[in-house]
């Protein structure tokens, strides 16, 4: 089968819906060959490649589907996906990628045990990227770092998957915008939260619950305030945080919270953080 991604693929509801539509369709097949066409792509937010890679690797491992890509189409229409390492990951090559424009935070995968590598990535590749240099106070640097470390812990504890966490970012110097995405393909927000509070029965309610600073840590332990801290930062800086889990696209747009239906489901959880100056 062949599937064409087309138009703009941005860090928003429509962009996510396009990827979920692809995932939903292909996941109905097993042992198939999927030719993924990038020839009609007009624009691709590099950080969204974390979502796409997570989906494609899950389709390959869970459904034994073979993904075939014409990399020339990527070079012609969205070469940023070569610069950020997406092509290397998908083609399983050891190609050393250098982003000569230094506009991307490289696409990486981290197992739940890769604590030291994840810390180094957050401290150096993400928060010391030229796109954030001079824009974060020491306090904001520490709080954002701690928040992502808490999110990493939550994936270790709650995702119930051996698959890695996917991370990627992109800086737009002209627009003075910086986008960063983390993705896990575990069980998502609802399952564990519903166990904790039976009254919470939708993904929308579960995301609301998690953003309020609650956590489903095992045993008697609590904690995990990463999302509420990021929301607090976004409120003070007019940044955005988007959270996607199940069929819910939850977004703080810099002023208020919006919630949308994806119309389809995707496993795990995705968090986008958008900085604006």
């Amino acid at each position, binding site marked *: 089968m062949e599937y064409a991604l087309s138009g703009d693929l941005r860090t928003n509801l429509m962009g996510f819906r396009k990827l979920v539509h692809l995932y939903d369709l292909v996941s109905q097949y097993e042992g198939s060959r999927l030719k993924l066409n990038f020839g009609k792509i007009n624009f691709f937010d590099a950080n969204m490649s974390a979502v796409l890679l997570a989906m494609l690797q899950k389709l390959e491992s869970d459904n034994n589907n073979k993904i075939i890509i014409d990399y020339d189409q990527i070079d012609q229409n969205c070469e940023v996906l070569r610069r950020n390492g997406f092509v290397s990951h998908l083609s399983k090559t050891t190609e050393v990628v250098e982003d000569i424009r230094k506009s991307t935070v490289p696409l990486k995968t981290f197992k*739940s*045990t890769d*604590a*030291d590598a994840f*810390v180094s990535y957050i401290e150096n590749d993400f928060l010391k990227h030229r796109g954030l240099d001079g824009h974060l106070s020491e306090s904001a640097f*520490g709080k954002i*770092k*701690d928040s992502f*470390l*808490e999110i*990493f*812990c*939550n994936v*270790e*504890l709650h995702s119930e998957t051996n698959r890695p966490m996917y991370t990627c970012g992109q800086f737009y110097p002209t627009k003075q915008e910086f986008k960063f995405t983390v993705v896990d393909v575990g069980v998502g927000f609802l399952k564990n939260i519903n166990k904790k509070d039976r009254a919470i029965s939708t993904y929308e309610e579960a995301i*609301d619950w998690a*953003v*309020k*600073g*609650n956590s489903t*840590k*095992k*045993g*008697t*332990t*609590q*904690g*995990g*305030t990463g999302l*509420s801290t990021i*929301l*607090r930062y976004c*409120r003070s800086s007019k940044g955005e945080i988007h959270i996607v889990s199940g069929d819910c696209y939850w977004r703080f747009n810099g002023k208020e919270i919006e919630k949308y239906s994806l119309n389809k489901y995707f496993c795990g959880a995705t968090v986008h953080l958008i900085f604006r100056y």
Partner: protein
Amino acid sequence: MQENTPSINVSDAIGTSNAILHSFGMTVYDTAKPLVQENKPVIIDFNGIRNLTSAFLHASIGNLMTVNPNSIHLITVNGLANPEWNDKLQDAIKLALNPEKRDAIASELNELFNS
């Protein structure tokens, strides 16, 4: 605290300066738990730690607080390099000893959420 009180260096116990994972916290908990159960004092030493999460503190110190009614007097924490870490530690202890505290935190966050 006596001079010969056993000390557990967190960095040595977990093999990294990043005390961020719940499983790392459980390693410290498992190491210190027998001492606390026997009503013996123990020092949890954070010297050498660069990064610390609340998840780690809840798993380690928070859980240790529930092992023995006398835990708060048996456990000494030192080497916290960052004042905010001390706040996280206090939260972990309060939550472990007084779960109702969680309601107050939830209320505070509700205000943030609805503002």
